[in-house]
């Protein structure tokens, strides 16, 4: 469905000096620097897959999406989406894709929402029957009718995003690019968005590429993730696998009735687990341990033996921490 091989994108940046002097200097003799937004990335995505494309700000996620949609021309390498080279045949490619840029809207700001849909209907030449059927479907999932006749500028962010995602799906695209679709939304709106994306994927087998900073989006939607850092893909694979490799550390938090004092004894008792750490602040204790080496029951038994435990909770490492540690390590061995 999507083939990307050895794609790079460089931008030329002109450095401008500081102050008036620098500005004048820059005017006559601007210093050129080449910035590698994306360097030598390759991947393949199958029909119906939902892929999370994650990375820190400036890692090159949006640049990749813009190349896949044909807006930007790659400096090197080859891209094929559904057999089409996007930057060479932008319009043909555009017919088969839907795009949501969370920071922007494809709706007409000053017009009632319904007008935007009728413009899109003409652009994609959607037949009346298809149009009515899909609008009914969107209304079912995204509840558009609540605000369909309001001007877009009066919509709340959550409403606008719902409308935007419907707009991107009106022509039943084969590939859907979502660039931070849940940015700035509240929890409820996020859940509605995710539900909609899931339903579309199930109903129409739409291939979805999703960039986000929200790890809940990824965990909820994607089985495969690609992690991008400084323009390079540092991980491409199964979400569960990375969770198994990096998510082996669990956290046990306890509240005791008296301050914790048996630090040395604790370490000797659990010395077989090299990953174990314990931090305490009076009656609050936080233990991080490797689930393959230490059992929760051992820890709780030990604690209960020495103290009266008032409260406790166990947490898995969330994917956000995992990604953070991958960013730091830069090397992934899975």
């Amino acid at each position, binding site marked *: 469905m999507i083939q990307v091989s050895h794609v790079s994108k460089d*931008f030329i940046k002109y450095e401008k000096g500081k102050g008036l002097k620098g500005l004048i200097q820059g005017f006559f003799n601007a210093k050129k620097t080449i910035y590698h937004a994306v360097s030598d990335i390759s991947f393949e995505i199958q029909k119906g897959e939902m892929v999370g494309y994650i990375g820190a700000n400036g890692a090159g996620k*949006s640049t990749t999406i*813009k190349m896949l*949609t*044909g*807006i*930007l*021309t790659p400096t090197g390498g080859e891209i094929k989406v559904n057999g089409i080279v996007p930057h060479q045949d*932008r*319009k*043909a490619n*555009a*017919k088969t*894709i839907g*795009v949501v*840029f969370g*920071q*922007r*809207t*494809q709706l*007409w700001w*000053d*017009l009632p929402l319904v*007008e*935007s849909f*009728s*413009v899109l*209907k*003409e*652009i*994609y*030449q959607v037949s009346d029957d298809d149009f009515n059927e899909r609008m009914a479907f969107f209304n079912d999932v995204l509840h558009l009718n609540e605000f369909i006749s309001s*001007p877009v500028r009066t919509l709340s962010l959550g409403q606008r995003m719902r409308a935007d995602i419907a707009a991107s799906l009106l022509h039943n695209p084969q590939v859907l690019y979502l*660039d931070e679709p849940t940015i700035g939304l509240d929890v409820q709106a996020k859940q509605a968005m995710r539900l909609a994306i899931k339903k579309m994927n199930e109903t129409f087998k739409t291939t979805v590429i999703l960039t986000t900073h929200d790890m809940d989006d990824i965990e909820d939607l994607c089985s495969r993730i690609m992690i991008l850092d400084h323009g390079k893909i540092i991980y491409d694979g199964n979400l569960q696998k990375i969770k198994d490799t990096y998510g082996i550390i669990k956290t046990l938090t306890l509240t005791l009735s008296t301050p914790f004092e048996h630090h040395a004894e604790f370490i000797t008792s659990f010395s077989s687990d090299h990953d174990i750490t314990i931090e305490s602040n009076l009656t609050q204790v936080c233990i991080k341990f490797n689930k393959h080496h230490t059992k929760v029951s051992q820890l709780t038994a030990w604690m209960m033996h020495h103290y009266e435990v008032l409260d406790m909770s166990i947490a898995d490492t969330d994917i956000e921490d995992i990604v953070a540690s991958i960013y730091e390590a830069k090397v992934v061995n899975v």
Partner: protein
Amino acid sequence: MTLRPYFAFFKAYFLVYLAYRVQVILWFFTNALEIAFAMLLWAAIYASSSATSLYGFTLVDMLLYQLLMTLTYSLTDMNPIDALLDDFNDGKIAMSLIKPVNYELQIFFQNLGANAFRNVVLLLPMLAIIIGSQLLSKAGVVISLMSILIFIVSVIMGLLINYFVKFIFSNLIFYTEASFGLWQLQAIVISLLAGGIVPLHFFPEVIGNILRLLPFAYIQYIPVMSLMGRIGANELSLALWIQLGWVIVLGLAANLVWRHSIKNMKVNGG
């Protein structure tokens, strides 16, 4: 290729301006004030001169010239610069490029939609003023059906020239990233060279002749002059051919420039 989606853009922008009708009404009054000031100025100039006609223009001719120039300005006004700058500067262009439409045609039809709305609003009062001034003027500039037809054809070509010139300017802005300065420059250059400030007759002959070959004169000046019967039959057909030539040359140039821009585009933001 079907034009259906582009009519959708036309309609959408017609409706956008309908949503901002107060702005259009204010625009109308600004124009009316401008005309009034220009008329007062010309009246003062003619009063202080001993001659009743300057460069073959009587005061009445001059007032009619100002009115017709304003009307033609409104008819041929296309403003791709604002849309393009907006799109380039904050990367909004991405939202247009993800659609299976020709961007140049999209902007053209959006502009046409705005133009149509404004002229529907303005045309009637403008025509009333012009016909009124015709009746008042004793010298009487005779406007025939034929000259109106030629005027319409010439205005359509003027609109295209105006659009292409500004489209090319917008792309220069995109290369140089010097938006405000170039915007100011094009506004003044086009207005002066197109005869918006004084008729091209008023320039020294050599300069006037050069200006009459440049595309700017063919936006409003030539249509107005043809309507006022200031161009002889032979000269008129030559002028229309030159106008058509400019439409084609500039249209091709705009297309070439756009192809270059889109290849070298940096999409800002997001």
